[in-house]
């Protein structure tokens, strides 16, 4: 099957890009791995006893706009291989065990972000989750992850996910944010002022979350972090401590917290596998979350006819993703039709970019995070590779992520390094961007053998 525009990822950026393209009369296909469109921020409920939140209502409207514009939405569908052709891009799709091919003249990659997972002692115990997973379970299914939940890490999602869980009546014992936003903000007054300019809604949301936690009796501490998870078969508690500016634990401040679940969140890593597989030019930008594609103002990547938008181009949140999605959609339309691109909402773009810079200033992970793992800590849980094994490989001369991987098997399991490689990157030298290879999702041999 073929189309003018294929959009991968049905979050804020992808929904908006697809809608713009379809409204311009182009045949547009939007694919997303999840069962429902919306992405993480606008995650739609599957079956939940709670009424939809305002964010979910807003998401519902975005999804309906895409359908109304004539976008063909294919959920539960992942891209497992892709190749750039002179006249477009071929995507190989998998939906369950059913494989299909999609030829498009232009591609918008809007694959969002993964949560950064930092290995720390005890992180593989049942009961340790990411805040995003906690939020997804609660938003999508109304399921709380525990009865007494500790939140620790850094980034707005930590606060938002904790406040969301409090709404369900779950007890959140503490929320520990490693950054001290007020102090860090004071160090960068202009960036802070600019970043917060006309961000009333975000500030209200943040303050609202803090207020809800306060009402529930949950302490919100900044400059604190979780050092290790305690428990035999599952989480029974955590050791927490004050952390300094580099996120290193401050000696003598450790104490034990009793909890049955831990939600960690260390900001986000752009999900760039598809872009790297296609061979888009990448740049390492820690303040944007790591490796990101180099994009023009139109969100065009280095590859002809391939655009990228949203968090996969650098962490910036749903507001920026909507604008970037619109730009990418306009760019895709101009690319296919050869007409001048339509007008973009540049004032909103500038405002959201300032916020993105502030986010990067405040929430970029600091070196102390990589030091939490002790020699015995498993860093690659798929292949059960410890920190000591990785350190030994680095000491023996494995200098790049690729060579650490080859020698230790770290990153070779089912997650294909999505979880562990950001952590390994901090142990080995960054080197070139890690190679992305097919299959981006595991695909059964039988299915490939029978339909390629």
């Amino acid at each position: 099957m073929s189309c003018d525009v294929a959009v991968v990822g049905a979050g804020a950026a992808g929904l908006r890009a697809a809608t713009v393209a379809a409204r311009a009369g182009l045949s547009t296909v939007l694919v997303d791995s999840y069962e429902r469109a919306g992405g993480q921020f606008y995650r739609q409920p599957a079956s939940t006893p709670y009424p939809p939140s305002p964010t979910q209502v807003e998401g519902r409207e975005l999804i309906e706009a895409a359908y109304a514009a004539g976008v063909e939405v294919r959920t539960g569908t992942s891209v497992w291989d892709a190749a750039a052709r002179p006249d477009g891009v071929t995507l190989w799709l998998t939906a369950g065990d059913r494989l299909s091919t999609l030829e498009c003249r232009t591609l918008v990659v809007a694959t969002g972000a993964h949560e950064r997972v930092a290995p720390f002692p005890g992180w593989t115990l049942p009961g340790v989750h990411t805040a995003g997973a906690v939020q997804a379970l609660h938003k999508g299914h109304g399921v709380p992850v525990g009865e007494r939940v500790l939140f620790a890490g850094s980034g707005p999602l930590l606060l938002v996910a904790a406040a969301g869980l409090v709404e369900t009546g779950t007890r959140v014992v503490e929320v520990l944010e490693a950054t001290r936003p007020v102090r860090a903000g004071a160090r960068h007054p202009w960036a802070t002022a600019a970043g917060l300019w006309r961000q009333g809604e975000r500030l209200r949301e943040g303050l609202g979350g803090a207020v809800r936690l306060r009402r529930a009796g949950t302490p919100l501490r900044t400059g604190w972090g979780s050092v290790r998870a305690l428990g035999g078969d599952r989480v029974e508690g955590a050791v927490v401590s004050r952390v300094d500016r580099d996120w290193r634990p401050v000696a003598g401040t450790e104490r034990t917290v009793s909890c049955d679940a831990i939600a960690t969140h260390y900001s986000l890593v752009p999900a760039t596998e598809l872009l790297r597989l296609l061979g888009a030019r990448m740049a390492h930008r820690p303040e944007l979350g790591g490796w990101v594609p180099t994009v023009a103002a139109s969100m065009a990547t280095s590859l002809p006819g391939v655009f990228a938008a949203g968090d996969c181009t650098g962490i910036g949140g749903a507001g920026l993703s909507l604008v970037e999605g619109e730009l990418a959609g306009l760019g895709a339309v101009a690319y296919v039709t050869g007409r001048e691109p339509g007008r973009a909402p540049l004032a909103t773009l500038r405002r959201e970019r300032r916020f993105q810079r502030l986010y990067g200033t405040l929430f970029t992970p600091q070196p102390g995070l990589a030091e939490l793992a002790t020699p015995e800590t498993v860093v690659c849980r798929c292949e059960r590779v410890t920190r000591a094994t990785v350190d030994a490989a680095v000491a023996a001369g494995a200098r790049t992520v690729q060579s650490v991987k080859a020698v230790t098997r770290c990153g070779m399991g089912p997650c294909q390094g999505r979880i562990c490689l950001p952590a390994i990157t901090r142990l080995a030298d960054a080197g070139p961007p890690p190679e992305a290879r097919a299959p981006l999702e595991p695909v059964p041999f039988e299915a490939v053998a029978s339909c390629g």
Partner: protein
Amino acid sequence: MRLTASVAVVGGGIVGSAAALFLAERGEDVIVLERAGGPTQASVRNAGGVRAQCRNRTERRLALASIALWRDLADRTGVDIEYRQGGNLRVALTEPTLDALATESVEEAQDGLATEVWDRAELRRRAPYLSDRFAGAKYCATDGHANPILATWMVVNAAKAAGARYLTGADVTHLDLDAGRVRGLRATAGGDILRIEAPTLVHAAGPWTSALAATIGVRLPLTPARNAMLVSQGAPPLLPEFVSSHEMKVYLRQAKAGQVHVGGVFTVDGTFDQRVTHAEIAHLARAVEILPGLGRLSILRTWAGTLDLTPDHLPLLGTPSGVDGYVVAAGFSGHGFCLGPAIGRTIAELVRGEPTGVDVTALHPDRFAAC
């Protein structure tokens, strides 16, 4: 920086490192120049097959020597290279193919290699997990496979322990000759210029050997070929043998960790590109036609290496005429990992002027000099 050595080895892969090991053990002062931080190319990007069957006679003898050396090296160093003599099974789709394998089996027996020819019924009985489409197979019980990454690093570390000096991140730019005799080489390493004076050079840089050799007027017919591989998710034991079908151009083995590795497609597109194409993935997925149990498993990863093909798919080993002190060891055409230790020992013997344990005159690079 200026350094001197009795032998400079260009290329720190399996062949260069095995040569360095056996040379250092013979008292030579060896420097190995490696472009990357360690072995990263064909030495570690292969299926890890260690087999003597289904080979040309010279390679068969080298492989038999290599199998003994692989076992010996693993024992000596105590490193687990996941070496397993689970047998090699070459399956035949048709009766004529099986007849040809039977003829080969006779020749192999003459060289002291025991193989068995199985007909359809015997194959069903001995390997019921394989598809029933095959007319039969040839089986060699002493063949097997190892983990090429662990095995190659083991040889690198053994060479270092024997006294070979490794210069990594070193890109060799010039081979220095004087009156038809090797003087040394020049390289760049991290912005520095290295000059190495050495009366003997061993050139074992895989498909990258020919470009540098051409600068001293030695023409080596090497063609880069992409060797694409699929890796399945981990699975319980499915097959002990390394199985291959020449007709289907698919081979497979199950690694110690449980993943099934599938290879067999060699793409010659005139590049060193190691990106696996969709056509290669689709071809290799046909491994389910050999091992039906693979069908329900997922393809987890793909990767590729670059092989150095020669016109006859046999290595180039020896000193090209007119360039004294220059030993070429390249063009392994996908056989370098298995043969590596025996090739390394042969290089040491050639450099030292000792009689070679295996007669390698058939591999002399001059056989293509007229081309």
